[in-house]
């Protein structure tokens, strides 16, 4: 079900837009990309160009970002035993944002990597943030309880948010650029950005999926997980690192896109249950489909103007989340 939802989202995401490509043509072009023997006879060359050079990379990037944020969110929620946790709670995405804003603010362009300066700095900053958060939490309390980590994450988030605001206040003409980036977008990134996020996504997701059982145990509390035989300290570090890697790489290529990491794991848990062995892969499928559709809406709803994708996910995500929250509260008190 998750997989077919994703396929549908991909096809729709590619076919619809300012220029509509017929669904059947879209499928044919896609097949031709995968299998060279499929002929493109009778298909408009412009359509082929739009699909393979503009729409396909955009859809794939949206899918990867959505998947990365959703699986990281699912893992953080399980680890922190808090259904309200997401990649932002730990300060990771704020860290990545600071990396990106610093690049924009100082007009940085590091030698050798050049155009890759922004994503590379973003990922570096997200790692730096999670190390600082963990290190700080460890200073407060050696056993690093979940509550301590969340509190530390929130403190770091606020601090880093203030840094970003400071840079925005000091900036002149780049203001629009920075704000545009902060609102998040997957447009005009091309295949290059896919190459940046893909390895981090594959490694991070694989690590998390291999830790599904441990996440199940940890979601019953760290003491319980320890009693069940989980090496809690080590697994916690591994999961936090993998989640940060996924978040950092997603923020690097698309800016801050909120609510995906919060709402999608919730939705997946409601539909398929909380077992992380299924929850993590299903979050990947649902998260990518969700972001592809959100991107589709962002560029078609008031075409030709494109809305930032972060606006769409927040507009859909926040009310959906409020409804979920009300429902679970009603269930608990009922």
């Amino acid at each position, binding site marked *: 079900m998750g997989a077919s939802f994703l396929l549908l989202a991909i096809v729709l995401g590619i076919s619809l837009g300012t220029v509509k490509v017929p669904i059947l043509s879209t499928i044919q072009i896609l097949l031709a990309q995968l299998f060279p023997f499929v002929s493109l006879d009778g298909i408009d060359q412009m359509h082929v160009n739009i699909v393979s050079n503009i729409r396909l990379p955009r859809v794939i990037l949206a899918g990867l970002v959505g998947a990365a944020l959703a699986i990281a969110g699912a893992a953080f929620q399980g680890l922190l035993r808090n259904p309200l946790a997401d990649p932002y709670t730990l300060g990771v995405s704020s860290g990545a944002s600071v990396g990106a804003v610093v690049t924009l603010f100082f007009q940085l362009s590091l030698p050798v990597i050049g155009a890759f300066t922004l994503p590379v700095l973003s990922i570096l900053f997200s790692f730096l943030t999670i190390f600082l958060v963990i290190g700080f939490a460890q200073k407060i309390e050696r056993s690093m309880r979940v509550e301590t980590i969340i509190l530390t994450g929130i403190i770091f988030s606020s601090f880093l948010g203030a840094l970003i605001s400071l840079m925005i206040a000091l900036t002149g003409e780049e203001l629009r650029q920075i704000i545009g980036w902060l609102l998040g977008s997957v447009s005009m990134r091309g295949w290059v950005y896919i190459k940046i996020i893909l390895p981090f996504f594959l490694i991070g997701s694989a690590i998390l999926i291999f830790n599904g059982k441990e996440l199940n145990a940890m979601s019953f509390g760290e003491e319980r997980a320890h009693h*069940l035989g989980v090496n809690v300290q080590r697994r916690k570090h591994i999961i936090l690192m993998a989640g940060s890697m996924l978040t950092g790489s997603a923020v690097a290529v698309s800016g801050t896109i909120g609510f995906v990491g919060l709402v999608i794991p919730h939705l997946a848990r409601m539909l398929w249950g909380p077992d992380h062995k299924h929850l993590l892969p299903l979050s990947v499928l649902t998260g990518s489909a969700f972001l592809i559709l959100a991107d589709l809406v962002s560029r078609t709803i008031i075409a030709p103007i494109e809305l930032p994708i972060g606006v769409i996910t927040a507009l859909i995500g926040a009310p959906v989340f409020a409804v979920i929250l009300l429902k679970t509260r009603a269930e608990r008190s009922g």
Partner: protein
Amino acid sequence: MLHIQHVSGGYAGNSIVKDISFEVRKGEMLGILGPNGSGKTTLLKMISGILPVSKGTISIDGTKLPNYSPKELAKLIAVLPQHAADPFSYTVKETVSLGRYAHQKGWFHSWSTKDEETVLRVMEQTGTLSLQHRNIQDLSGGERQRVYLAQALAQEPRILLLDEPTNHLDLSYQKELFDLLKKWSKECELMVVSIFHDLNLAGLYCDRLLLLQEGKIVIEDTPNEVLKQERIQNVYHTKIAKQPHPKVPVPQMVLLPEWENDQSEEVYQIDPSVIHASSERIVVKTEQPLKTMSSGVIGSGTGWYQNFVNRHVDKSYNFSDHKQEMADYLKRNGFIPGETVGMMTAVKLEDVTYKLYVDGHVSIFVVVTAGVGNAIDASVIDREVYDYTPGTINTWIFVNGELSEEAFIQSIMTATEVKVKVLQNEEVLDLNTGTLATGTSTDSILIAATQKGTSIEYAGSFTQLGRLISKGVFECTTEAIRKSRMRKEGMSSSV
């Protein structure tokens, strides 16, 4: 075997547990007792490896705890948590299956048939099999507790640690849980170490008890040795009394509430105003319940009672279930059977004799109904079986004072000795044997005390209370027998 040697430790360098040593053998159940803050949970957390040991060693089968990997340790020790967080809606079976984590091998933790069998078996044993598809968040506290017990058992541990496992359980589940644990500890050679708040439950099920105070061991021994009234009072700083369990040879502790000893109130005194006699029944009603030891039809044995009824029945009274009949009678007449001692007699109740006897601070109120038609010599046992006919000498003694258990028993002895003497003085004969009678076949006795005011340790015939009883029973019984005899003579002479 679990060895704890000179262990100290706690949180952040602050030693809560201090220099504790003990060991647990296979198949043994050890209870850890102690007031709040005495270090029970800290000790348990150190054994389960959650808290580090700052001094001393904990070892299992000779290997120190830190030398086991988390997975190896989970195959040896399982913990039943006091309360587990369950923020997500796992099913019961998913939850129990997590107990197999330490037994699964390889990257993919493949689920073997042995895993499946174990999970099904422990769910069966804990009665959670029928709940297996239910959502853990929808279960009651007791059901959830059993699910976590199943999860712990799925680890197939050799040591099971429990932290006040009966917290959320009602009475029947408490019993069920410990019956099961006791059985498994013997059958599977499981070592069970459990923290208890309930001293009685601990005394009932544990082989040995460990009493902690301020992080140190006060005593570690069998329940009978550990549960001593004075020791428990000192450790828990609270007033308790100890009494035997009615069925099992273990001690039970009961709390003594503050109002029990409230001396500010005027001490309640029994006097002749409590008695209401008619031809149908003699009733003594007291304002406060009295501690009573009696051989009545209803309310016999030891208990606290407020109503005392001596009911006249016809000589031909014959019910197969006379207890039930008596209870019905009491209810019909507005007495609550649970608060009433009920006796029967065929004697004319007009002949009742009662009197208050006072000696300084001690006073007793004696009520006797007597008839000697069924008089027998109890020392002659070789006789034909006697039909049950309602009791003929019923002796009630109400004491204003606080009696010890010994005093109750000695009161009964003294009263009985005096009664025998009265029968001899009055030359009452056993008509079957022709010898002097010692009583009738169905005599009843009742000693009831207010348990307030003067404390009375002993009631032998030489003590103050004993002498009062001697005097009172002697006078009242003599008078009651004479009244009854005179009535009979009067009746026969009028015939």
